[in-house]
């Protein structure tokens, strides 16, 4: 196979970071090439450069041996490069066909010709087995179908190189298999596919070659046939670790958080949590697994009263807190580490000291005024206790690295001393070092007897930390399994909505003590 595209010595700087440091990447015609690396390794930046979204500081890109310039996505599109971004680039109020022809010049000159475009789109979707209604509004389509729209957009433009950034994050295992089948077919057409991912299994499953990036540099390129998951992990992480959390034994105590038949809706009135029940005990981590968008966020928000509860009950330490306000709720025993660190969990424009009291601003008060001395003291304590590195508590919280910011939020929520801790995607986007310390802190909180509800899309995280794992699918709990005995396959099936024989069926009958307390 011949080399189709070549990126040489690409350098790209961002504030305080060299995102790509002399990166080389070669893509052959008709191959599926995986770009592997941890969050922040520079994969997405590299692909944004290839798509003309970012300019590079130095380096060159060659296609079929000729040097090319990519000043904007327009140049990339003209050269047959297409990209499906991690966040879909779709205009929600537009129809599928409008999204498809957006930015294209063809047909009746300056006039839109949606009919002809619809016909062509229909033809393409039939040929590739991607069922789709061209006249549907994109905003009303499920995520999986939106991805189909994105792929069809590229095919409509007859792209010869397709870049997919983390395409499986929003898919069930079954949808993922479908996607891979499509990609293989595209490969047979002679097109090249780059998939950006940090999931090893997917690479072994569908890629021909893999390039591993770490800290903005390329570590290695391998034929997938000749490598192993073990080798790839080592290349990706840079040391031979298998991230493992050592979790001391602990007998869970009484049920602290009880959720009964909870119903929650999203903004558009669709039911996202449909009669969900669960219990978390003191000194226990209950993991909640599931593909993003199956009601996990809504569950967390409803527990904190950030979202209206349509039905059911939330009980903390025997007291019904269903109808309390957020402020009463926070005072009354639930802490929350939200998934969105920079927009919900903290205020980046304010100082570390001010962020350290977020949610407790009415506690640090002397008379009518804020007790700034006390607030500063507690911020100092927080940064010392959780090892938050930065240039002091007066610096803007936005200048902290992701890991340190997460420690600030997690520490704040742990120290406020509530009995229940709800944690959502605590390590998303963090580097390995930060992941380790966040895990340690969660285990420590468990040892201190907190009841922890851990919502995560990373199965690895759940298997390491949780005592029990509840799998959510379309707003319901498919089953709860003991983390030690759990198999990835069983959890995967439940994530896809299939209840395997033998898995503990819980539903609303979670009354008895959890089975997995002795590890």
């Amino acid at each position: 196979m011949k080399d189709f595209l070549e990126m040489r010595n690409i350098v790209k700087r961002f504030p305080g970071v060299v995102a790509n440091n002399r990166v080389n990447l070669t893509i052959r015609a008709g191959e599926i090439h995986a770009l592997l690396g941890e969050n922040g390794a520079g994969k997405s930046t590299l692909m944004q450069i290839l798509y003309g979204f970012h300019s590079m500081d130095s380096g060159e890109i060659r296609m079929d041996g000729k040097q090319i310039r990519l000043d904007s996505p327009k140049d990339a599109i003209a050269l047959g490069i297409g990209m499906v971004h991690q966040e879909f680039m779709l205009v929600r109020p537009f129809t599928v066909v409008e999204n498809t022809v957006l930015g294209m010049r063809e047909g009746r000159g300056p006039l839109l010709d949606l009919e002809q475009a619809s016909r062509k789109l229909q033809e393409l979707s039939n040929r590739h087995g991607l069922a789709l209604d061209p006249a549907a509004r994109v905003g009303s389509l499920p995520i999986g179908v939106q991805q189909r729209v994105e792929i069809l957009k590229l095919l409509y433009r007859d792209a010869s190189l397709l870049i997919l950034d983390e395409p499986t994050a929003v898919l069930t295992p079954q949808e993922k298999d479908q996607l891979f089948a499509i990609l293989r077919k595209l490969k047979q057409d002679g097109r090249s596919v780059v998939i950006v991912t940090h999931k090893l299994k997917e690479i072994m499953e569908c890629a021909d070659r893999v390039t591993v990036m770490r800290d903005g540099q390329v570590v290695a390129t391998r034929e997938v046939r000749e490598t192993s998951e073990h080798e790839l992990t080592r290349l990706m992480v840079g040391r031979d670790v298998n991230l493992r959390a050592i979790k001391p034994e602990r007998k869970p105590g009484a049920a602290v958080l009880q959720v009964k038949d909870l119903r929650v809706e999203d903004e558009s009135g669709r039911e996202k949590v449909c009669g969900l029940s669960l219990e978390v005990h003191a000194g226990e981590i209950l993991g909640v697994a599931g593909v993003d968008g199956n009601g996990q966020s809504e569950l967390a928000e409803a527990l904190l009263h950030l979202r209206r509860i349509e039905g059911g009950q939330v009980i903390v330490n025997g007291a019904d807190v269903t109808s309390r306000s957020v402020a009463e709720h926070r005072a009354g025993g639930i802490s929350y580490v939200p998934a969105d660190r920079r927009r919900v969990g903290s205020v980046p424009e304010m100082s570390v000291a001010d962020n350290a009291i977020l949610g407790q601003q009415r506690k640090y008060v002397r008379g009518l005024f804020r007790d700034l001395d006390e607030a500063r003291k507690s911020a100092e304590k927080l940064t010392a206790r959780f090892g938050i590195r930065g240039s002091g508590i007066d610096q803007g919280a936005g200048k902290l690295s992701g890991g340190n910011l997460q420690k600030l939020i997690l520490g704040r929520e742990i120290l406020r001393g509530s009995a229940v801790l709800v944690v959502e995607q605590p390590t998303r986007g963090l580097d390995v070092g930060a992941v380790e310390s966040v895990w340690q802190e969660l285990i420590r909180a468990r040892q201190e007897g907190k009841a922890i509800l851990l919502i995560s899309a990373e199965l690895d995280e759940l298997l390491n930390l949780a005592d029990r794992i509840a799998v959510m699918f379309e707003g319901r709990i498919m089953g709860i399994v003991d983390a030690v005995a759990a198999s990835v396959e069983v959890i995967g099936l439940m994530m896809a909505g299939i209840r395997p024989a033998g898995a503990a069926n819980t539903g609303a009958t979670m009354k008895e003590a959890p089975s997995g307390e002795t590890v």
Partner: protein
Amino acid sequence: MNGPSFVLSAFVVTWLTASLRLAGPVLLAALGETFAEQSGVLNVGIEGTMLLGALASFLVSFYSGMIWASLIAAVLAGIAANLFLAWMYVTIRANQVVSGLVFNVFAVGVASTVYRKAMGDSALPESIAMFQPLHIPGLTRIPILGPVLFGQTILFYATLLLACIAYFILFKTNLGLALRASGENPAAAASAGISVARMRYLGTLISGAGAGMAGGYLVLAQVGLFRESIVSGQGFIALGIVIFGRWNPLKAAVAAMVFGACDALQLSLQIFGSHVPSQLLLALPYIVTILAISGLFGGKAVQPAALMVPYDRE
């Protein structure tokens, strides 16, 4: 024809004629603003732009007497002024509301300085040649509707035509699709190869042309002279009309007529000696706009998702 019914029909004719006459300039400004807002720019500066357009058309008409050249001067002045605004909005990515508001103050300063410099301190405002109502023969004789619909100036018919053209461009062309995408989801537009900056410059410049021409309309077809208070909030009314018309040029035309009708009702009632306080009627268009934006009736207007959100590719 007996007395009361004659008075009534005279009242209706004056009222409706004035409604359409008053709707013209704000509709023109609103049409331009629709393009700006669809591309993601809230151009509050159209108030000041209208004033500059009015000044330009007045001066050109005063010195040259060429009425069409005056109108073109108004359009060009609007475009030039909004080139600066577009630079602030798109290139500098300054706060759109703040830049627009301060620009309005700036425009007042420029307009009154230039006017005084050009005209001296003469006490009497100078007046100029104006567009006259067409009075299409035959058609004007249709009772009530005739004089109302066919007794307007050519600028009014041109404005209606522009509303149709604006609708066609926004919703039936590739350009319109690209422009709307820039206002809904600039990242998606950019990823489809569209230059969001170019679209937003275009939207802002079109709104400049519309507002400048609206200023010319005020001078050349309604007032016949220039004074600093000639615009007095009509640019802001146009912003309301855009929302009332749900970012659709044809609906904006209807909205503009409603506003014109409120405004004209006050004039007509005064002429016919009514005792309703004129201020209540003067305030009516503003109150209607407030209610329309609040979403108290007719459901809430959903604005372009990225309106007022600066876009930076990196």
